[in-house]
């Protein structure tokens, strides 16, 4: 296919446009990385940080000595791992049961789950429920209320319906019951959908801060994002945290520490993103096909 001159011009202009757009998208991250490795006394007047102002890693030393951040990391790791495991597993089991057409009451259960997409009790009743269950300041409050999403379940139901019945029949002839069929036949075939749903659940937990706002009155139950929120809005908190050695405190300022903290806490997502991007896109499309 030969391009006319106009089409060539368009093509170059379009390519240039996207290069500029990408630079705009990357710049904030670049700015933070450069800011975080700058020497603190040279960041005072601000700037564009196209290159670092001097070079120093003390801000990172301060981040890793900060007990709040370390505690936030711990809480977020626990909630993300448990939440993702519980959410993915029980979404799969529930979805599988519903996906079997012979299940009596399957329609009713589907409707029950569908209705949660249309109507919700809202913030206050959920908060009061968690409080009534005495879950405040426990991991349960940070994990359980958000585990089961209707959307995830229906995505999985769609996938399970697509698995050929012959496989199930064959296993049944070999004497397998529904449990063994689910664990030994269905689950191994469902890795793609488990990965996709699991990823979205995991990102949700990793980025969650509002559960801490509601359910964590003690700072040692704060998720990482909550610690970060506090640190961003409260300038002095960034460096006056207990645990940071005096030597480091004297060498850092709130700006470099904020930047370093943001980098450190977004690193896990940025690190896995290039490898998992495909799954994320697939997930978005499964959702949209249904929509």
């Amino acid at each position, binding site marked *: 296919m030969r391009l006319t001159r106009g*089409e060539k011009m*368009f093509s170059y202009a*379009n*390519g240039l446009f*996207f290069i500029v*757009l*990408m630079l705009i*998208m990357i710049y904030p991250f670049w700015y933070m990385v450069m800011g975080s490795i700058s020497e603190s006394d040279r960041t*005072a007047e*601000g*700037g*564009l940080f196209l290159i670092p102002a001097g070079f120093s890693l003390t801000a990172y030393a301060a981040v890793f000595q900060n007990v709040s951040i370390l505690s936030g990391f711990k809480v977020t790791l626990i909630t993300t791992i448990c939440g993702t495991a519980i959410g993915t597993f*029980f*979404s799969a*089991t*529930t979805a*599988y*049961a*519903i996906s*079997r057409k012979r*299940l009596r009451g399957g329609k009713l*259960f589907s409707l*029950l789950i569908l209705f*949660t997409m*249309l*109507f*919700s*009790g*809202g*913030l*206050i*009743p*959920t*908060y*009061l*429920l968690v409080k*009534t269950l005495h879950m405040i300041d426990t991991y349960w409050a940070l994990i*359980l209320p958000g585990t*089961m999403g209707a959307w995830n*379940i229906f995505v999985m139901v769609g996938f399970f319906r697509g698995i050929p019945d012959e496989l199930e029949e064959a296993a*049944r002839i070999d004497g397998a019951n*529904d*449990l063994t069929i689910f664990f030994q036949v269905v689950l191994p075939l469902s890795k793609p959908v488990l990965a996709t749903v699991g990823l979205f659940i995991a990102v949700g937990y990793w*980025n969650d*801060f509002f559960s801490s706002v*509601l359910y964590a009155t003690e700072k040692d139950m704060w998720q990482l*994002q909550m610690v*970060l*929120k506090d640190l*961003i809005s409260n300038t002095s908190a960034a460096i006056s945290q207990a645990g940071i050695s005096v030597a480091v405190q004297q060498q850092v300022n709130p700006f470099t520490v904020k*930047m370093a903290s*943001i980098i450190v*806490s*977004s690193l896990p997502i*940025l690190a896995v993103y290039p490898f998992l991007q495909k799954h994320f*896109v697939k997930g*978005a*499309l499964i959702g*949209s096909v249904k*929509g």
Partner: protein
Amino acid sequence: MAVMNGAARRGQAAGAGAGARRPLWKDLIRDRYLYLLLLPGLLLILLFRYGPMYGVVIAFQDYNIYKGISGSEWVGFDQFTRLFNSPDFVEILSNTIIISLYKLAASFTIPIILALLLNELRGVVFKRFAQSVIYLPHFVSWVIFSGIIITFLNPVDGMVNVVIQHFGGSPVDFLGDVRYFRPMLVITDAYKEVGWGTIIYLAAIAGVNAELYEAARIDGATKLRQMWHVTLPAIRPVIVILIILSLANILEAGFQQIFLLYNALVYDVADIIDTYVYRVGIQEANYSYATAAGLFKSAVAMVLILTVNTIVKKSGQEGLW
């Protein structure tokens, strides 16, 4: 075993018409493991989704946390009367709708344009790379992103104001000024989400018949005309569905973003139903009143979604369910 199952299924299929189904208990026993698989997830849903739905009854009470739902006094629609008569109500409702519509204007048009342009990029590697980069902000949490925004827009040493001052302007407090706050919400939301928004359109564009483009080219259509006369009409159903869906979600103005960026200076233009429910309910412990406000939102949202779904189905498209 297999034979029995087959027989059972045939029986069921025949019974569906004649009303002569197998006894329920036999099915329950046969499918006991399926129910076992169903149970934990269903219990979590009943507890954490339906539990709060029961909890909304406190909107009709003067809820006292020590007396609980059973011991609190019932007050009928008093909380709603208070809400609808409060000057706050008009403000939060209009803020919610205005912010939502502003965002919709941006998040509806920009992804379509970006998808059209992305689709024209030459070179598979470059295209993929460009996509990955513009999707990325979607996965960065609002906490981190708000940290970036606050740092960049800081009136004293923020990068944006450093540039403004460099060109002789005077610094602007973007997040503390009622004139700038809403535009900032729209811009930052667009920045974070437009890339992600292109995915659905790109998939739709990929499905357009390539012969149509070839025919258009032979007729001498420029790229722009091809986009306008071939691509856009082809993806119109997707566009229509997405805009209808966003209209159904009009009361979702972006709680996390506003919660993390707003401050008392801009409450007049930034306070939405969700932030109001949080402040009045959680911070001031006006549980019943805040629940009434939340229930108002949930109820309207449900009516909107049901209406939209009916319209979509009537127009001959596949609905949400």
